[in-house]
């Protein structure tokens, strides 16, 4: 294979990858997500990727759904079990995704802190809460958290590394 062929092959691969992105199973980069997860959890907030919190964190979240960060997110037993199982199967196994606060939050893990610096802590009445990923990550609904989709609202500055 000469150089031109190699480049063409790479371009074809890249094109294929680009074309495949929107058709990922379940339409989500971290998916597929069960329909129950979308219906029950994503009606109030973005369907958070289960991969961003450890299994003990998710277990704790699912045990106190009636008091879920200030609201009642109670579920019937069947759905609760199905969603809890899904979260356990897909939870992170890395310490950096273990919550450092009670109750556990995705926005309070060593990984989240490293990625976001102080930004979400500035959240207040006029600035979006850390729970509202899509206010900066415009394509968060589809699991796209890349910088190309990032748009910071007024009052935020991009974190400098």
């Amino acid at each position, binding site marked *: 294979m000469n150089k031109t062929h190699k480049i063409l092959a790479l371009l074809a691969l890249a094109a294929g990858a680009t074309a495949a992105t929107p058709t990922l199973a379940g339409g989500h980069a971290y998916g597929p997500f069960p329909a129950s997860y979308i219906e029950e959890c994503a*009606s109030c907030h973005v369907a958070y990727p289960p991969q961003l919190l450890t299994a003990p964190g998710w277990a704790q979240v699912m045990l106190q759904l009636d008091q879920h960060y200030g*609201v*009642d997110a109670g579920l019937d037993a069947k759905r609760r079990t199905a969603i809890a199982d899904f979260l356990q199967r897909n939870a992170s196994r890395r310490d950096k995704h273990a919550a450092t606060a009670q109750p556990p939050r995705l926005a309070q893990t060593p990984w989240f802190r490293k990625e976001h610096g102080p930004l979400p802590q500035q959240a207040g009445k006029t600035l*979006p*809460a850390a729970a*509202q990923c899509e206010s900066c990550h415009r394509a968060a609904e589809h699991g796209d958290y890349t910088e190309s989709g990032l748009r910071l609202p007024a009052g935020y500055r991009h974190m400098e590394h």
Partner: protein
Amino acid sequence: MKLTAHALLAALATTALLAGGSAQALTAADYQSVLIAAAKAAEPGFAGFSAERGAAFYRSTHGGDWSCASCHTEQPTQPGSHAVTHKQVKPLAPAANPERFTRADKIEKWFKRNCNDVLKRACTPREQGDFIAYLLSVK
């Protein structure tokens, strides 16, 4: 009480399915007819639902921080915004969002959650019926 409501709803849903063959088996009015039976059983003097009472209920904070309008806005034909996460909430009035009040499991789930959040208790059948009467009156 709850079992009776379930049985009535199941019968209603089956009838609607057989009659129309539609996947959307319920309407808000269907659900209200179930609530009438429950309200009569709970309150001997029950004299029907009131959209006016429902409107007042919708806007009251019931001694807490939130009212129904906190998330669903003063005008329930408009999209709302979740009080904590600010995620958009689709309009609550059936006139603006025909999917509302078409699934018994969803209706019961959200009454349970939201009544706990706003009133710190379950809503009575009359409160639920008044609430739906108000939402049906909004065009």
